């Protein structure tokens, strides 16, 4: 029984997936977009319930022969991904209902399956489980990326969702192969697949090679340079509400794997992984910010900005201590609400059917003041402006990194952040300063989408004003994973 208690979150998600499948199969086939939306609401309600329950259910302890651990760390990450899924579901709800009114179950099943992978990942204490869960997370995303494959835009262009999915897929499949090869070397040399055992294995060239290959594999999922190139294309081609989810949840899971594997498991070999990770972080910040500058499609812009954001959070991971992990979690929490919100606003604002270019934002302040306000908050948060949660996120990450001796990277990050401001402000410029009177339609966010955006907005502003509770929670979660007094090998 206690096993089930520990495993309650994966079980809940799996159960929800099954429930959705059943409802979809059993419900009468003549559904319209309107009635069909109920399924989406069911998913959202279920996720909300799970999220709420996570605050009262104590899932701590080991399960499944020690391959799964449900402590504070796991719960924290689970809350993040479930929250992201909830917001993503609310955002996608109408889109899905409109696109495939009769087959909505598929979308939700795939989403929930991916989520199932994500909720298992932080709890996994065994590499087999970890890699399987990680793939469970990944494969549905390929499918979901292609979900809008039959769309046609107003000007008749065919959907690019297929291309988006393919780019996601081909880099992903290659990375999976690399990951597997690396894992084979790593576990082979360590003789065990348990994370605790990895920490005790001595360093060998082959083991180190395996470890770094795994790093590359995970780097793909979080869009770390040079594994990032799918990001802008996929973000541009896939359905925006899905991209909102794609841009945050897998990154949370990916970074939690990094923390699990590298900080907690392989922390003692920090000397081996720190330099490439640091370099990747630097490159991510640089490439992401620099290439975002000339973008005119909002989704590409946010894609590149997301690459840069990953660069920042990698700094905290690179710190390699409890504080770094805690700040990673805080950053991720902030990133989830901010980036998801930003994508949802882009989605809602482009409702006039004029695409996702910067010009789709023109006059937004007049056409949809609420969306404009939300966009302002999200972009400022991404830029790291005070009293939006993104500021604290960036601050903590940089602070943790500097504390761990990465001052040079921190300075580079701070300088590059200014570039970021430029392109975020350009979006604001389009939304607030440029206006062609009466030309565009008024986008009106549907209730679900509006609710999702409002929730994100509330979180961005609320946590920006009062970040202390989240900082404390993140710190507790990190301590659960990495004991602050644990001997961490410094370079």
């Amino acid at each position, binding site marked *: 029984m206690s096993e089930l208690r520990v495993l309650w979150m994966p079980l809940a998600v799996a159960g929800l997936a099954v429930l959705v499948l059943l409802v979809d199969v059993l419900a009468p086939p003549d559904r319209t977009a309107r009635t069909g939306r109920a399924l989406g609401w069911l998913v959202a309600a279920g996720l909300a319930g799970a999220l709420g329950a996570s605050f009262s259910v104590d899932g701590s302890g080991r399960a499944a022969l020690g391959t799964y651990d449900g402590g504070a760390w796991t719960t924290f990450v689970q809350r993040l991904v479930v929250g992201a899924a909830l917001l993503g579901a609310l955002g996608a709800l109408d889109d899905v209902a409109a696109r495939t009114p009769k087959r909505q179950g598929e979308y939700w099943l795939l989403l929930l399956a991916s989520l199932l992978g994500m909720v298992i990942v932080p709890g996994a204490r065994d590499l087999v489980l970890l890699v399987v869960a990680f793939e469970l997370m990944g494969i549905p995303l390929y499918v979901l990326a*292609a979900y809008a494959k039959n769309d046609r835009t107003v000007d008749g262009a065919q959907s690019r969702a*297929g*291309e988006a999915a393919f780019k996601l*897929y*081909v880099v992903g499949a*290659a990375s*999976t192969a690399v990951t597997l090869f690396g894992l*084979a070397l790593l576990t082979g040399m360590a003789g*065990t697949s348990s994370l605790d055992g990895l920490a005790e294995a001595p360093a060998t060239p082959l083991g180190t090679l395996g470890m770094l290959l795994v790093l590359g594999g995970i780097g793909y999922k979080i869009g770390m340079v040079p594994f990032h190139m799918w990001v802008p*294309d996929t973000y541009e081609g896939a359905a925006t509400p899905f991209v909102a989810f794609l841009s945050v949840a897998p990154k949370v899971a990916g970074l939690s794997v990094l923390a699990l594997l590298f900080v907690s498991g392989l922390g003692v070999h920090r000397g081996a992984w720190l330099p490439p990770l640091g370099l990747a972080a630097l490159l991510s910040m640089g490439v992401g910010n620099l290439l975002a500058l000339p973008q005119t499609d909002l989704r590409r812009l946010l894609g590149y900005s997301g690459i840069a954001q990953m660069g920042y959070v990698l700094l905290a991971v690179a710190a390699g201590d409890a504080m770094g992990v805690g700040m990673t979690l805080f950053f991720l929490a902030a990133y989830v609400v901010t980036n998801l919100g930003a994508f949802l606003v882009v989605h809602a604002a482009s409702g006039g059917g004029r695409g996702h270019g910067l010009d789709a934002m023109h006059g937004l302040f007049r056409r949809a003041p609420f969306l404009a306000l939300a966009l302002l908050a999200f972009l400022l948060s991404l830029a790291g402006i005070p009293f939006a949660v993104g500021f604290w996120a960036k601050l903590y990450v940089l602070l943790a990194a500097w504390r761990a001796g990465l001052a040079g990277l921190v300075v580079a990050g701070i300088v590059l952040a200014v570039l970021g401001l430029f392109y975020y402000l350009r979006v604001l410029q389009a939304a607030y300063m440029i206006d062609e009177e009466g030309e565009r339609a008024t986008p009106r966010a549907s209730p679900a989408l509006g609710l999702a955006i409002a929730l994100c907005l509330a979180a961005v502003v609320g946590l920006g004003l009062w970040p202390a509770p989240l900082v404390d929670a993140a710190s507790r979660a990190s301590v659960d994973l990495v004991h602050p007094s644990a001997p961490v090998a410094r370079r």
Partner: protein
Amino acid sequence: MSLASCLLLAAALFCVGLYGLLARRQIVAILLSIELMANAANLVFVAFGHYRGGALGQVFAVFSIALTVAEVAVGLALAMLLYRRHGDSRVELASEMKR
């Protein structure tokens, strides 16, 4: 035959697959290359399992095979999708989004 020779063979297979992955332009060919790479990884699992003992190597290989199969299924579906869209399955056709 030794662990080292198995590993070298696996590395060679992996790298041949890598070459194919990068150099081929047909989507199905790319999938084949990925299969090669995964296969190389499996060989490493099994080799370590054989020389170091324990079921882990084979377990991992089983899971790995399953993962790969699942991936290939999705990959082939994507290939078909792109073929329908472009009337061909060369990867460079799927390059409408860039820069």
